């Protein structure tokens, strides 16, 4: 089981590098990389392999090469949008301070941890439901110490990033920065640890995906 889990996280990282994750899963990995410096080395290795793969591809002819070159030489630099991710694996911003969200996640969610508009789902279990984004169901969760999440109603694969506190399930223990991957087959009944609330970000394959999207299901990771 543990070995399977590691494989799945590896595929998650590789699909992040390839840029083929649905947007919320992409943000989840980016946030993980902000929290976990150690994971960046592996991702940087994967990016070097991707660069090598780019070079290995059979070139596709460019139709009007001279025209294109002319257009490039005449182009204005002000139209160029660059993102920090063009330069490096992680975000070149200050590391999140204790109790605050990774910046990639804060940009995506629109709130810092203290300002999340939680709604109580049941005693000891609060949720901020962001709805469906890019074919995924996206939410943040807050678990009272010792609270177990009741049997999941989702279908498909769920990935969660722990931001604060920790939870355990049949697979292992997850602390801040850890990613848990679970699908229907896995005994996934997270229980928050007793010493403090557990807060996290969860992305689930939506039950009904938009047709025509060529992004892959998160569930493909489990393969």
């Amino acid at each position, binding site marked *: 089981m543990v070995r399977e889990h590691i494989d799945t996280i590896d595929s998650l990282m590789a699909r992040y590098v390839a840029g083929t994750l649905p947007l919320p899963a992409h943000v989840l990995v980016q946030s993980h990389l902000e929290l976990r410096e150690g994971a960046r080395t592996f991702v940087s*290795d994967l990016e070097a392999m991707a660069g090598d793969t*780019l070079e290995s591809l059979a070139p596709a002819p460019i139709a009007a*090469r001279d025209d294109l070159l002319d257009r490039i030489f005449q182009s204005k630099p002000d139209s160029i949008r*660059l993102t920090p991710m063009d330069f490096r694996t992680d975000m070149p911003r200050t590391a999140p301070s204790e109790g605050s969200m990774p910046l990639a996640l804060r940009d995506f969610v629109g709130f810092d941890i203290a300002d999340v508009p939680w709604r109580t789902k049941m005693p000891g279990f609060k949720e901020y439901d962001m709805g469906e984004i890019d074919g995924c169901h996206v939410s943040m969760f807050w678990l009272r110490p010792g609270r177990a999440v009741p049997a999941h109603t989702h279908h498909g694969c769920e990935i969660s990033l722990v931001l604060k506190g920790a939870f355990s399930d049949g697979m292992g223990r997850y602390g801040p920065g850890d990613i848990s991957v679970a699908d229907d087959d896995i005994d996934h009944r997270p229980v928050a640890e007793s010493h403090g609330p557990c807060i996290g970000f969860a992305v689930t394959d939506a039950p009904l995906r938009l047709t025509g999207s060529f992004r892959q299901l998160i569930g493909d990771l489990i*393969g």
Partner: protein
Amino acid sequence: MTVELNERFARLARAVAVERDKSAFAQLFDYFAPRIKSYLLRLNMQPQEAEELAQEVMIVLWHKAGLFDPAKSSLATWLFRVARNRRIDALRRDRGKDLDAEDPSLLPSAPEAPDLVMDAQQRDERVRRAMSVLPAEQLELVRLAFFIGLSHSQIAEETGLPLGTVKSRIRLAFGRLKKALEDDPRIDTDD
């Protein structure tokens, strides 16, 4: 990916940045633009769109070559990142979403934590050694799955292998690749 080629590309990128050298740029264009287009075509982009996006990437290189740091990555890796990120942006625009606003505090030279700094050449050599562990057909599967980003079923269709075989071979090959990387620990440079 050879050291000589990487060094040549780094010199050409520098000539583009410092001297606005058009012929240096044309050499980089002739090598990279058709490969970036090829990468995008593999991802099912239409030829016209793929060419436009490849052009966008090359425009970045023409104007921003000075931001490329050969100590951090090869030019191929940098351009791969730019192409990948442009493609993600294009997909988001298509969906009418603009969820990730551009970061105005773009500081490409922000210092990396010292323990993360590894000379790009060392990284590339290490990665090349790890990839050489895999037989050609296994490496091809890993490339298709992880770096081109094809789904398992697309790969099964393309290779004619049963889906289950594709899945298990990819898992096995990627596991070997990771092990080879782990067994060849990086050596930090003194920056």
